[in-house]
């Protein structure tokens, strides 16, 4: 299995590095350097900023590279390759590894340039050793999350469900008392409107939802917002320059999310029809 996965990873890496998407990755790294880390006579940014900015860059690039790589895998020329594999998941694993390797390579090059350039960021060993788990966890999560947006993995309405749930969770995370008040009022108006039309049952349900949003909606959305704790912990820890004991768990939690999403993606891919495109 290792031979097959490494062969496919090398093949995809070669293909991606010669593609427009690969070029965009390199170009975006250069632009990032120009905007944030070009000394231009000013003071160098701190290492905590480097960790955060390049980490976020890796997150975004992993997402986009996954879309691009998976689109290449889901083409007709992959048919003879899929047939040779005992499990389709090997191709999925190779795609993830290709994206993670490509992104991490660009991140490391960028960091190296920033460290060695005159007037660059001061290297702090204690902070540097925190970088790999952080960046790798963010990159893998972004790659695996992006799988669900691709034709390679999506099965039936899976794309709508997964990104729908993500949207609801994002809404929950940003919800406050004012938002919940607005939601409660909106539901109340709909309930009144439904009652006036004689749709009693719908009206009652909407009224109950409105009351719930007013009374305990905020608690519930705050509870849902816990899902985003690893991201908050990572940004806080990175900006502070050190992680406390609970924040240090954040990359591991992110990898747990990635594992769940990967298992889901693997299950979708294993059971779907591969209508590979020309």
């Amino acid at each position, binding site marked *: 299995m290792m031979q*097959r996965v490494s062969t*496919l990873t090398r093949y995809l890496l070669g293909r991606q590095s*010669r593609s427009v998407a690969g070029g965009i990755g390199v170009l975006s790294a250069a632009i990032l350097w120009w905007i944030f880390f070009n000394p231009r006579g000013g003071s160098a940014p701190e290492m905590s900023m480097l960790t955060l900015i390049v980490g976020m860059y890796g997150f975004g690039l992993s997402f986009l590279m996954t879309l691009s790589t998976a689109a290449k895998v889901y083409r007709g020329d992959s048919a003879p390759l899929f*047939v*040779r594999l005992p499990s389709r998941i090997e191709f999925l694993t190779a795609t993830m590894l290709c994206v993670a390797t490509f992104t991490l390579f660009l991140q490391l090059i960028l960091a190296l340039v920033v460290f060695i350039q005159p007037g660059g960021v001061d290297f702090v060993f204690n902070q540097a050793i925190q970088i790999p788990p952080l960046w790798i966890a963010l990159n893998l999560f972004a790659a695996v999350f992006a799988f669900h947006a691709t034709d390679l993995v999506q099965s039936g309405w899976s794309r709508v469900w997964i990104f729908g749930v993500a949207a609801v969770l994002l809404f929950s995370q940003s919800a406050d008392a004012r938002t919940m008040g607005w939601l409660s009022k909106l539901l109340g108006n709909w309930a009144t409107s439904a009652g006036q039309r004689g749709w009693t049952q719908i009206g009652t349900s909407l009224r109950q939802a409105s009351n719930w949003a007013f009374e305990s909606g905020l608690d519930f959305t705050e509870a849902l917002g816990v899902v985003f704790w690893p991201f908050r912990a990572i940004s806080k820890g990175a900006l502070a320059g050190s992680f406390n004991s609970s924040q240090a768990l954040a990359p591991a939690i992110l990898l747990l999310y990635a594992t769940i999403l990967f298992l889901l993606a693997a299950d979708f891919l294993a059971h779907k*029809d*591969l209508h590979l495109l*020309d």
Partner: protein
Amino acid sequence: MIEVDHLSKRYLDVQALDDVSFAIEQGDVIGLLGPNGAGKSTLFRIIAGLLKPDKGRVRPTIGGPTNGWPTIGYKPDRLLFPPGMNVQQYLKMIGRLQNMRGSEIRRVMPTIIDQVDLSMVLSRPISQLSKGMRQRLGLAQVMMGDPSLLLLDEPTNGLDPAGQSEIRDIIDQFKAAGKTILISSHQLHEITAICDRVLILSNGRIELQKSVTEALAEKSAVEIHASHDVTDLTAALQTLAPGIEIIENTILLTGEAAIAQRPAVLGLLLNNQYDIVSMEHKRMTLNEVYAEAVQ
């Protein structure tokens, strides 16, 4: 080797396959025929594991020689290869995916390349190959790793007669090497020449499933012309076998049983003072068998 068991597949409102069953045994060379849209490529893709059937299944034959799933080499109907690779790189990659070691690839690849006659273009990017060469590369990748079942979906598609003949020669070599092959083609003479068995699909259903010899013999006929009207012998002739028809001085023997009675028919005519003017063995071509099956 594998059993295709009551396979059905539907795409929205199109029934691509409808209760298709057959078995592929070790060493079989099976020709899959059918008009466009008959379900041939869908059947290939299901056997190759790219599509999932709605009903039925493809399973390894119990106690078969491959001891479980056979390894499969698949040449799709479309000639698509990864961009930016040359012939050698592509074949090496396929070999590695089949768990071949580097030394094994180096040992096997020259033989396969010679077999498909691609040795002159080993380092050439695939995108620069002619259609015929790409078809040959498709066959070469199928052979990498010595898979036990070869699925060849229209291997001569889009080639000129010379190119078709070259590909046919290569497939003949695969057959001579004892490979198990499922091949689809619109070139019926090709199927007649290469295959032992023929499956004719139409509207997703198997319309005919026989050995090529049987399919052709069943529809063949012998026409005997006597010197004068033989209708007096109608009763005597028709007792010999079913499928004997008399029209004035012509006797038509249709089907294997009737043709087997040819000496008896000739003897009866001669004993009754008839001269034999001519005797013609009319063999039905696979084109005619096919046309009848898909009607």
